């Protein structure tokens, strides 16, 4: 399976190249690739159907326990087949939809990348492996949503989707890490084995919260659902593939995958049901308020995702069955409808519901496909949608609230199905829609296939589809003996009654829609407080906040920066000194004071008064002279305490500095004395504190200093082994010659820097 992934990545990488080479025929290899993968996954079918998981292990980064460990069981295989099958159809469809687009190569790149990561996601057994692919789907989704990069909406939507799913991704990462710590395992299978430990570990709750956050953002659960409708800015094949059939279901997949490990405690079930229920109803309600075909489909997708999450939350065997069947049905019909919507857009140039009438005449095949899909969506017998709906009702019979949610959603779905399957194609409107005459095979064939798939699976539900679904359910429930029995006809049960009721209510709703539409305008203000608006508010707030914060902090003044640094330094040092309270023996100090010589005192006094004088002087030259005075005085100290080399160096350098000042500063303008005003006191305060601290540190260190063995060693060997009497010089050129090498390098660089500073003038030559 690693090779499947690698093959996918390779195909993605070469897509732009192929496009350049083959032109529009690039579609051929790009369609063949998913078909090939489909075949590959089919080949695993027999083994999986026997209840064995196909496992492949490849080490990747074993040090971090991240390996490319693949595990193909019922659930994975179902998803993998769905993904590659859909992939092939969408690739095919896209070749028509984006015909002549110069960026088609890149489109295929992103799409194939996405498909591959999705395949990796569902087949990964290593939790971090899954995470890797998870994030890749976010990225490829980002690139696909922003495919029409010239349009601002597309960019904004792509960004939104990325940030929301990215947020979730990071939460998921943290959650997965916690899980891996809690279960001491890095694979789903391993986690499953250690379920009891996981459930009892203190990390359980945070892990669940974080994982749910990840899944909810990915699967567009309330309150993170808002990115999905915006993501419809992507080209339609993308919407069909990513944002209805596959990527958004990655969250569902992960929940299903983790359900056997994490389910049990109430927190899991309650949060799933709450979020799912709200999302389902909200999506259903919102779907009916839109007139854009894709928006409607997007909201119903949200709603369906909500239902799926609800089912996972219920967590019973029935619910799991319902979840899986409905997931499949939804993928098929929603994919069809999206593709059809794309076809309509392609041929009429609009997706506005109110401008589309009786397209059936021109788009017979698309119409057929849409109708079939709509029937499935509405849950009409014998479509797979019907089976799914029945199962949903069955699973939620216990709880009236849940039942209500299912019913509301179902009714809305019926209404939407009527719009999609009936109104735009077969309903005759007042005005005719302009339709581009040329029907495109590549645009109607894929939806037809999908639509018939829905019908076929519905018809064959009890034979062909059953074993795989059964394996899937067994995976989710972790119950290898669970039997999945599906049939089209259960007989007259309350559930059937509910189905019929749904259809009737749906029809009624459809009829009432125009009337409701006017009333719905009242709800408009609500949008301004919705999560989408909140996102934008937050976004703006963050941008402005960060801008003003940084402007405040990074105010451009050197002195502020120095202040911050010194505050930090002094604060830290003060704290440490306060904490450790190292004392200074002042008696000893006072005793030492008796040894002070007058000349030392005079020089010291000179330095300090020179400093004071320096603070007050206005003349630049006087300052330089005073600096020279201070420098010479300090050199005198070096002499007085036995450092003739240092003193000589200090004298010479002081002299040279004066020369440099003289050579350079004579052209500077008059010394404008800039007072600090009130800030001055702050500066004085920090300076004094700093100086005092340094004094304290010096006194402390002096008191505690220990005799160094280096001194003794150098004293011993300097003449005998290093042939020099001046130990300082011997240290400089021999014992620690490397220091000196570095030091002269500094000098050389300083000279170079000065040279280029003074000579290199960008105005005279060269660009800046």
């Amino acid at each position, binding site marked *: 399976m690693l090779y499947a992934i690698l093959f996918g990545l390779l195909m993605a990488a070469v897509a732009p190249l192929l496009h350049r080479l083959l032109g529009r025929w690039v579609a051929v290899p790009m369609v063949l690739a998913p078909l090939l993968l489909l075949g590959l996954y089919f080949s695993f079918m027999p083994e999986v159907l026997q209840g064995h998981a196909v496992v492949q292990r490849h080490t990747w980064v074993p040090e971090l326990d991240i390996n490319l460990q693949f595990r193909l069981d019922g659930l994975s295989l179902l998803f993998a087949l769905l993904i590659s099958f859909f992939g092939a159809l969408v690739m095919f469809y896209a070749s028509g939809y984006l015909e002549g687009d110069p960026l088609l190569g890149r489109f295929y790149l992103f799409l194939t990348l996405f498909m591959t990561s999705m395949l990796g996601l569902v087949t990964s057994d290593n939790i971090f492996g899954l995470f890797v692919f998870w994030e890749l789907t976010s990225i490829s989704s980002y690139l696909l949503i922003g495919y029409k990069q010239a349009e601002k909406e597309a960019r904004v939507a792509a960004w939104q989707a990325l940030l929301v799913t990215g947020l979730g991704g990071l939460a998921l990462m943290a959650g997965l890490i916690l899980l891996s710590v809690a279960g001491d395992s890095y694979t789903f299978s391993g986690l499953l084995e250690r379920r009891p430990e996981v459930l009892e570990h203190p990390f359980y709750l945070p892990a669940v919260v974080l994982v749910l956050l990840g899944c909810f953002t990915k699967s567009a659960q309330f309150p993170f659902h808002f990115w999905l409708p915006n993501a419809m800015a992507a080209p339609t094949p993308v919407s069909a593939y990513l944002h209805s059939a596959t990527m958004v279901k990655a969250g569902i997949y992960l929940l299903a995958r983790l359900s056997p490990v994490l389910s049990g405690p109430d927190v899991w079930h309650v949060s799933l049901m709450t979020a799912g229920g709200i999302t389902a109803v909200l999506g259903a309600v919102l779907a009916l308020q839109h007139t854009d075909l894709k928006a409607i489909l997007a909201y119903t997708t949200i709603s369906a995702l909500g239902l799926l999450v609800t089912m996972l939350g219920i967590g019973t065997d029935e619910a799991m069955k319902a979840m899986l069947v409905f997931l499949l049905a939804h993928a098929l019909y929603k994919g069809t409808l999206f593709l059809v919507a794309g076809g309509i857009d392609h041929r009429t140039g609009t997706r506005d519901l109110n401008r589309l009438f009786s397209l059936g005449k021109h788009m017979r095949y698309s119409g057929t496909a849409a109708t079939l899909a709509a029937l499935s969506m509405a849950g009409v017998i014998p479509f797979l949608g019907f089976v799914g709906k029945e199962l949903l009702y069955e699973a939620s019979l216990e709880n009236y609230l849940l039942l209500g949610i299912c019913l509301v959603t179902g009714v809305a779905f019926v209404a939407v199905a009527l719009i999609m399957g009936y109104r735009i194609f077969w309903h005759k409107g007042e005005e005719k829609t302009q339709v581009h005459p040329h029907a495109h095979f590549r645009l109607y064939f894929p939806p037809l296939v999908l639509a018939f798939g829905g019908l076929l699976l519905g018809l064959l539900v009890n034979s062909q589809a059953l074993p795989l679904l059964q394996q899937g359910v067994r995976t989710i429930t972790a119950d290898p003996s669970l039997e999945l029995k599906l049939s089209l006809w259960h007989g007259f049960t309350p559930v059937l009654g509910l189905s019929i009721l749904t259809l009737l209510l749906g029809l009624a709703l459809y009829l009432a829609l125009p009337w409701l539409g006017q009333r719905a305008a009242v709800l408009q203000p609500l949008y301004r407080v919705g999560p989408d608006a909140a996102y934008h508010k937050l976004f703006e707030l963050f941008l402005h906040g960060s801008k003003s914060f940084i402007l405040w902090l990074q105010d451009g003044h050197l002195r502020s920066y120095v202040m911050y640094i010194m505050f930090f330094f002094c604060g830290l040092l003060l704290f440490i000194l306060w904490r450790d309270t190292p004392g200074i023996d002042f008696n000893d100090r006072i005793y030492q004071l008796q040894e002070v010589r007058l000349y030392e005192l005079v020089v010291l006094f000179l330095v300090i008064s020179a400093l004071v004088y320096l603070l007050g002087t*206005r*003349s*630049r*030259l*006087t300052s330089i002279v005073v600096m020279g005075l201070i420098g010479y005085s300090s050199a005198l100290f070096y002499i007085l305490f036995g450092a003739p080399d240092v003193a000589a160096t200090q004298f010479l350098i002081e002299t040279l500095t004066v020369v440099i000042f003289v050579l350079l500063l004579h052209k500077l*303008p*008059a*010394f*404008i*004395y*800039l*007072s600090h005003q009130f800030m001055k006191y702050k500066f004085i305060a920090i300076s004094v504190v700093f100086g005092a601290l340094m004094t304290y540190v010096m006194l402390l260190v002096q008191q505690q200093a220990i005799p160094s063995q280096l001194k003794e060693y150098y004293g011993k060997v300097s003449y005998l082994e290093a042939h020099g009497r001046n130990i300082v010089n011997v240290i400089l050129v021999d014992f620690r010659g490397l220091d000196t090498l570095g030091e002269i390098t500094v000098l050389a660089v300083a000279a170079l820097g000065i040279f280029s500073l003074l000579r290199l003038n960008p105005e005279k030559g060269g660009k800046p």
Partner: protein
Amino acid sequence: MEQSIDWVLVKEVISCFFILAGVVFMLIASIGLLRFPDFYIRMSAITKGSTLGLGLILLGMAIYFNQPGVLLKVLAIIGFTSITAPVAAHVIGRTAVQNRIPFWEKTDLEEFRAYLVKAHLEQHISHDKYLEEKAKKEKEMGDAAGDTV
């Protein structure tokens, strides 16, 4: 008789004498620096005072150490200072003239006037006037008064 003379003591006494003399000259030069009325007189007084003082101190040291190496160094220092001190004095003095640093009012500038006129330096001859003008300039420019010489 020969034993009664402590040559070391003699050496030390001579050395002390030189050192003290030198230091006194230095001190006097410093006092002169403080006391004299104008820049030129001050400079005149101190440049040589310090050179002589330093020379004497150094000689005292050479006598005390009584080593050729030290003597050589001492001679070198004396040589160096006596070359550099007057040069420095000259350069500073010339600069002062060029910058219209005023002379003491009792200074006789009879023979110098031609030079000053030629170099357009005849203004600010008076010390008090100079200080007055400097103060005025600083008052006018406030903080912006730059390097007034």
